[in-house]
């Protein structure tokens, strides 16, 4: 224990004593069994209150015909059975077709965005692992997109993407002459690119932050040993850095995936209540199907389908990556 003295311990002491005192009386065995549950309790209660119970209500909503005629008194809303679901997955009818389209757009967008965020974030974190002049400044700079309020950041991009007066067209068309005429970024097919750029710009610093913190936990000795073995810089990155980040990456990628998939703020600020077809992300699509058109039943059904899909993806992902990590460790 003596060696940990140099680490900051001040924070722990008071909490430690308070939590420590009364528990002495409880027999050791019960304490051992009960303690983990006790530690989980606050998280559990809050998750129940704010996520799980509303989620259950949301699932119940998906079986109801919840339009403006009934929102005032949910109990009176008639049961719709599976109608809301049937409507959502009837891909030949316009509603289902639009949902399917929106789903594919979202999948494509999410894969690209998460891939780029992770790649840029990890590369930047590795590049900035050793000290060089200006590292601190650069690190602070890189966190700026993350520190700006979403609305401020996205509205700035809206400003830059404007057709007539925006910076992007000014550079691409006026200054570089890459396009014959100014392009539209906020409507039409290019809106997908615009959305992706904004999402990556805003999202990669988070990957950077998390990977950077993860890198700190890789013991130096590993690198030293590898260097003695004659491994070069690139090999060290491949053989030590990336595998050691396994645990962090597993969660990071999953969470980036889930957020990007469900991201509402970015497309909403970028395109408003009606997104162009090329960038019709599922979150805004569902928002439109429920809040804008006041049909909460159908909106909920779509969300439940989404939840099932994400559960499946997450399950497969965790199974595959956990096995992968176990195999690589063995």
């Amino acid at each position, binding site marked *: *224990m003596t060696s940990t003295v140099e680490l900051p311990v001040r924070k722990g002491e008071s909490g430690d004593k308070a939590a420590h005192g009364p528990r002495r009386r409880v027999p050791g065995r019960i304490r051992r069994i009960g303690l983990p549950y006790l530690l989980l309790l606050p998280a559990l209660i809050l998750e129940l209150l704010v996520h799980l119970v509303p989620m259950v209500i949301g699932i119940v909503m998906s079986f109801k015909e919840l339009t403006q005629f009934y929102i005032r008194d949910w109990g009176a809303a008639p049961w719709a059975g599976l109608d809301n679901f049937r409507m959502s997955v009837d891909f030949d009818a316009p509603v289902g077709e639009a949902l399917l389209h929106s789903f594919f757009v979202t999948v494509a967008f999410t894969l690209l965005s998460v891939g780029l965020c992770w790649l840029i974030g990890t590369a930047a974190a590795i590049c900035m692992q050793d000290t060089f002049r200006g590292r601190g400044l650069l690190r602070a700079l890189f966190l700026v997109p993350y520190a700006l309020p979403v609305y401020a950041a996205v509205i700035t991009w809206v400003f830059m993407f404007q057709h007539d007066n925006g910076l992007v067209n000014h550079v691409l068309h006026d200054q570089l002459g890459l396009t014959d005429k100014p392009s539209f970024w906020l409507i039409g097919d290019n809106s997908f690119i615009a959305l992706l750029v904004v999402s990556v710009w805003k999202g990669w610093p988070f990957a950077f932050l998390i990977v950077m913190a993860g890198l700190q936990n890789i013991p130096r000795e590993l690198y030293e040993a590898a260097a003695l073995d004659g491994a070069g810089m*690139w090999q060290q990155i491949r053989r030590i850095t990336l595998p050691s980040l396994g645990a962090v990456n597993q969660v990071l990628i999953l969470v980036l995936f889930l957020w990007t998939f469900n991201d509402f703020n970015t497309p909403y600020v970028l395109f408003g209540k009606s997104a162009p077809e090329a960038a019709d992300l599922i979150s805004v699509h569902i928002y439109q199907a429920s809040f804008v058109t006041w049909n909460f039943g159908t909106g909920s059904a779509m969300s439940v389908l989404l939840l099932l899909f994400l559960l499946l993806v997450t399950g497969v992902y965790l199974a595959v990556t956990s096995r992968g990590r176990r195999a690589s460790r063995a």
Partner: protein
Amino acid sequence: MPSSPMAPPRSFLWTRLVFLTLLAGFVLLPVYVMISSSLKPLADVTGKFRWIPSELTFQPYIDIWSTVPLARYFVNSLIVASAAAVCSVVIAVFSAYAVSRYDFRGKRVFTITVLSTQMFPGILFLLPLFLIYVNIGNATGIALFGSRGGLILTYLTFSLPFSIWMLIGYFDSVPRDLDEAALVDGCGPLGALFRVVVPAAIPGIVAVTVYAFMTAWGEVLFASVMTNDTTRTLAVGLQGYSTLYDVYWNQIMAASLVVSVPVVAGFLLLQRYLVAGLTAGAVK
């Protein structure tokens, strides 16, 4: 690596230079646009984009305070985001420690359930959550809707799942020998947590705190229906610069910069903790 006996090869240094320069450009571009636009009169901002402002004015920085109650929104955001971040991290530390260090029944169920809460689109539990808050308010008199408390509670649970998962990862990477040594030395389990595990995982904890703070700082949808004029946060309040008449681009940019400066400064202060991780030889 300073401690590494080999200097990084040239190819690495060049790649790094090019990559970081491009990246900095990408990051800075909108920031430059924000700064330059915030110093232009509105007529210039709505005109053709120019790299160099033809005329500089600080008027937007004066106007921002009277167009919307920016100071109040800022204070609200600061209170909500800080409280949510601190609570979220403290709760997450306990949970992550339990999962990382104990074997107990229901562990998998817990972690999976917590993670699954990230999958439900926020739009759909907005309404149910609002109902629950109203009902709690009616039953107990605790006003959760429209108050900062309700928002804090909501946001802290938004960041909780990921915080727990990340911290489990960070705690797992803290060698168990360390806290076992502490237990042998007579610390209780919580003693081991706070004396050994937490200090060793400071970078992770700081990263998670920053994340929890930013989640609350930027959220738009819930804040738009759960706050009123007195409790409105910045994320929503900034929209006040785009009015029925006009979008005050220069004021939006100025206000965004003004409110972001303290946050970026806070990041700067926290930065050194991000890298002050496991020192070699913590185990002896």
